[in-house]
């Protein structure tokens, strides 16, 4: 189809499909009316049963923990996929002759930016760890905290310390983190089996609601997810950054 024809065909079809969607959506309860029962039951029992004050986290990592395991592996598969797809690319760019790369060197990073970036690094990493660790208590957890942690690695890059980043981010270590984050989730699931219960059963002591070490396996799963997400995003960012590796070869910036 030509672009014009395709747009016309789409607009006609989308008008019909949109009408159908609206027709179906008006069959929903009014906005603000929740029919239950799933959420109501969980809100009533979860804190007492799981000693986790954040019911969303209790659903994510306990009641529906197997969904989250699947989600974690979607991330895992996507990251491995990016590594596979960009791998050939990386191999080739690294073979580019140095003088060719030097022509297109990025403008040097000013010292102020470098200092600011490095100064922010500590708070960002701390905040990331805090978000991961408190997932079962307050909003947050491994998914959000992992992304925050990964931006820390980016700060290192932005401050012009790519060489440092390379040192901070040896490929093998990131691969190891990526693998162990994913494996950790399954291993915690197998812990349930080892204890004679079911897969992903929360078999650790639950503790008291509100305590940092409470809710049984939830903090552990959050940790595994945090490692996985952080490693995954660092890997993604650095795979996309590899191009810039050529622009900022070791020795050119420092």
């Amino acid at each position, binding site marked *: 189809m030509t672009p014009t024809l395709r747009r016309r065909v789409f607009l006609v079809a989308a008008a019909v499909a949109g009408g159908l969607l609206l027709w179906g959506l008006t069959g929903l309860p009014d*906005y603000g009316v929740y029919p239950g029962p799933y*959420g109501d039951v*969980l809100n*009533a029992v979860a*804190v007492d049963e799981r000693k986790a004050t954040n019911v969303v986290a209790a659903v994510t990592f306990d009641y529906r923990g197997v969904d989250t395991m699947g989600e974690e592996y979607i991330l895992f598969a996507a990251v491995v*996929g*990016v590594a596979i*797809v960009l791998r050939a690319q990386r191999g080739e760019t690294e073979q580019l002759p140095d003088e060719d790369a030097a022509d297109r060197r990025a403008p040097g990073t000013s010292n102020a930016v470098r200092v600011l970036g490095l100064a922010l690094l500590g708070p960002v990493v701390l905040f990331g760890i805090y978000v991961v660790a408190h997932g079962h208590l307050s909003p947050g957890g491994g998914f959000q905290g992992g992304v925050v942690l990964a931006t820390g690695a980016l700060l290192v890059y932005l401050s012009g310390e790519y060489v440092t980043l390379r040192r901070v981010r040896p490929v093998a270590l990131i691969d190891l983190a990526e693998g162990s984050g994913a494996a950790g989730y399954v291993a915690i699931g197998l812990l349930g089996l080892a204890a004679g219960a079911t897969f992903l059963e929360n078999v650790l002591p639950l503790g008291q609601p509100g305590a940092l070490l409470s809710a049984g396996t939830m903090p552990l799963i959050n940790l595994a997810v945090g490692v996985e997400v952080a490693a995954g995003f660092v890997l*993604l960012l650095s795979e*996309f950054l590899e191009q810039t590796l050529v622009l900022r070869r070791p020795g050119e910036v420092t």
Partner: protein
Amino acid sequence: MIYLPYLVAAWLFLVGLYGIVTSRNLVHAVTCLSVVQSSTYILLLAVGFERGGTAPIFLDVPVGTKAVDPVVGALTLTDIVVGATVSALLLALAVQIFKHHGTLDPERFRSRDD
């Protein structure tokens, strides 16, 4: 008002698709796809919303306080993070396609190597 969030979701779903269908740049198309995806989150969270309910976090409020559905929150919060990595995979494919064709415009590489 009673259906407004649902309408917003339906609108974003179709607008995002419009963007993909008319896109002349694969990176643009990938971003449009994330708009389509966001509409499903809006829909899920809207159906789980209960007027007057608090967030389902009972750290400062006692259990039994009227709260919104925690399940839809759990379903979406993981999917948002994961969705971004899938977008990254699409972007990686787009970058590689650019490497071969020197363009990101899907209209310019429709030739088939059958």
